[in-house]
């Protein structure tokens, strides 16, 4: 019985949610979910969400949010497309570099100009999309055809594994990950423990930028083009994943890395299940909105919430 008392059911909710979603679609689609082909499809659709949520989890453990991620990804994708014309092998490094620079700019606006992360990234998002429109000049850019052949399952699985492992390492086994949560718990106490709050904040946004850069590249080799709509549905999915997984909006030590995995796969199974059911994309949008609402509702710890950032 003592064991039962120890388990905090609230922390189990996300996992139960994931199991619930999987079982629901498994029954409704008559067992299609666990077919090998479909599992591949799930991995495919979890790819973008998972990688972005890994990076986003650090921003959230600081207690921040990011509204600009999709746009950073689009800009990186576009820059990758531009340099791919010179040499395709430049595409990935340039995309990551561009993402990092834009992430650093987010860090600057938030940590140095001292704007709340929501307002900061809202502003930068608008600036970034302005830049995007300038580069694209109203059209789209396409990558050399053969780059599409890079888009293989094995590359994606490798990339996912590497990034998740790096994420776990940074999150649980380095001072950086722990400092992020310390800042999220109480920035003033962290500062008085010698944590450079500014640096930590910069790092979270720069890393987010790197991840978005990488995703920009993967988006390019998947679709072959960069356009103004690249990455536009990413943010909603990532926020949903983070909240469904149980990452707290207030940041701090309640943030756990398993939330990233649980949340991302919940979103992936959800999207996949709806496709299996043959839903149209406009229905999906509605359902995703509802899921988001539910995610926010369960993740808000109203009892402890003092202010909403």
């Amino acid at each position: 019985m003592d064991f039962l008392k120890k388990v905090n059911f609230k922390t189990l909710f996300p996992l139960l949610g994931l199991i619930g979603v999987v079982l629901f679609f498994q029954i409704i689609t008559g067992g299609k979910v666990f077919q090998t082909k479909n599992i591949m499809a799930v991995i495919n659709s979890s790819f973008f969400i998972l990688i972005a949520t890994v990076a986003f989890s650090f921003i959230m453990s600081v207690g921040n949010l990011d509204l600009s991620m999709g746009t950073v990804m689009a800009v990186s994708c576009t820059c990758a497309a531009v340099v791919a014309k010179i040499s395709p092998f430049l595409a990935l490094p340039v995309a990551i570099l561009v993402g990092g620079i834009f992430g650093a700019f987010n860090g600057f606006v938030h940590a140095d100009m001292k704007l709340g992360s929501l307002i900061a990234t809202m502003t930068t998002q608008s600036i970034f999309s302005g830049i995007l429109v300038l580069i694209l000049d109203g059209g789209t850019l396409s990558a050399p055809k053969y780059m599409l052949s890079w888009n293989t399952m094995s590359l994606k699985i490798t990339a996912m594994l590497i990034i998740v492992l790096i994420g776990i390492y940074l999150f649980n086994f380095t001072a950086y990950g722990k400092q992020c949560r310390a800042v999220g718990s109480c920035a003033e106490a962290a500062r008085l423990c010698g944590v450079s709050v500014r640096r930590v904040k910069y790092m979270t946004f720069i890393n987010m930028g790197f991840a978005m850069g990488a995703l920009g590249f993967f988006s390019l080799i998947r679709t072959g083009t960069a356009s103004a709509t690249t990455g536009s549905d990413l943010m909603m999915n990532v926020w949903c994943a983070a909240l469904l997984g149980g990452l707290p909006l207030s940041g701090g030590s309640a943030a756990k890395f398993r939330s990233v995995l649980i949340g991302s796969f919940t979103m992936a199974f959800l999207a996949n299940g709806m496709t299996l059911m043959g839903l149209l994309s406009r229905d999906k949008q509605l359902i995703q909105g509802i899921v988001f609402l539910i995610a926010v509702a369960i993740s808000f710890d109203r009892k402890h919430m003092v202010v909403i950032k």
Partner: protein
Amino acid sequence: MEAENYLLCVDNMKKSFGITKALKGVQLQLKSGEILGLIGENGSGKSTLTSIIAGIQPADSGGILFHGEPYSIQNSVEANEKGICMILQEKATFDNLSVAHNVFIGNEKEFCKHGILNNKLIFEKAREVLKKIGVTEIDVKDKIKNRSFEDGKLVELARAANLNPQILIVDETTTALSQNGRDILYTMMENMKKEGKSVIFISHDIDEMMSKCDRLSILRDGDYIGTLEKEEYSPEKIKSLMVGRTITDNYYREDTKSSYGDEIVLKAENITTSNLKDVSFELHKGEILGFGGLADSGMHDIGKAAFGAIHIKKGKVVDGQNEQIYSPSVAMKKKIAYIGKNRDQESLFVNSPIRDNVALPSYKIIAKNTFVSPTKERKFVEEWTTKLDVKMQNIDQYVSELSGGNKQKVAIAKWLGFGADIFILDCPTRGIDIGVKASIYKLLTDLKNRGKSIILISEELPEVIGMCDRVVVLKNGQNSGIFVREDDLTENKLINYMV
């Protein structure tokens, strides 16, 4: 005396938190018109017992009689209405509200007309209430976050005074107050007693308890040990009842001569902050340098300034190599540690496990090539929490669940683990029981003997006199006298320079 004759009577009260039995069947009797002391080691259940009486949390079992009748309440608002009011050990003011709104929190209705709050009236009334308890320097329009920790406590006192309770519970508040703040509290308690009302008073200072309390109830590890009448008081007896064995009396440093190296390790040159004017001092290797003063003396700014944690308007703080210390992370690189007074907001992450709290400044020591090994981290944290005898379930317990004194021990453990060369301690023994206090003083002496330097800022004059090689007295933000350790240094001598 029969139970009906007591104002408040607690019987066989039990309370557990998971596997921790905080109260194991405690009783307590409070008469009308008395000040009852409640004393016991850290984690003995004092705050738990009194917060149940004040309706802040429910008991598992056990009964309370108030005015001879069963007393059951759901929350602290109901307790207030019935006339029981508690000053918490922790901070209980709201940062973003003004002093005045904090005084009347929960009672805004009195100032409302057609749903509109009459702020002018609130400010006026708050000024009145504060003045009644003897506080005049606090601007009622100021936000609490711009006021010191002590002012916050005084505001809580005013809030309680305004409610005019039958029973006032004062949990470990004196150590947050300087001399003049304490006088305000004592006067308030005496006045209540004169009016036939009662006070339950909690403190770890035995002298204070003996002089202020009419009777003294003792708790040990969740058990009720007994109650002493005033005639039965003696420090030895109280101490041995508290800890269950006799402990030696003298716990300060034994030598009476000041002693330290020639090398200067830290120097403040004419620093001016919002609370300090042109203060200079030098800290030597192996020296314990004390700072004392009244609430408005600005002494708490000394620690923050020396740690680079606040903005210095003029002057600077430099280390032995004449390099400036302008931020906490620079200070830490120079092996300086700082334990602040405002524990829950500045020194600790209360909503994090003990493990994260203790390890945070020391990841550089624990980590190997950026890798923080969980086993090594655990060993490190366990080593230091054991050294300070933190009463906890395990290191993954949340700090918010610890008793006040044990929180303070965690804050100290954190910086001892960091292994600094210079320790800046602002009221380090706040809320700590005598047993652990003795071991902290011993630790400080050891540190000194190993050539470490210490800045000790404290409201406790005996502590400053007992431990320091030199004592700087501050008054109105200025240096008003420096005293070197010697046999005949007395509290009165220092107080003369404070006021």
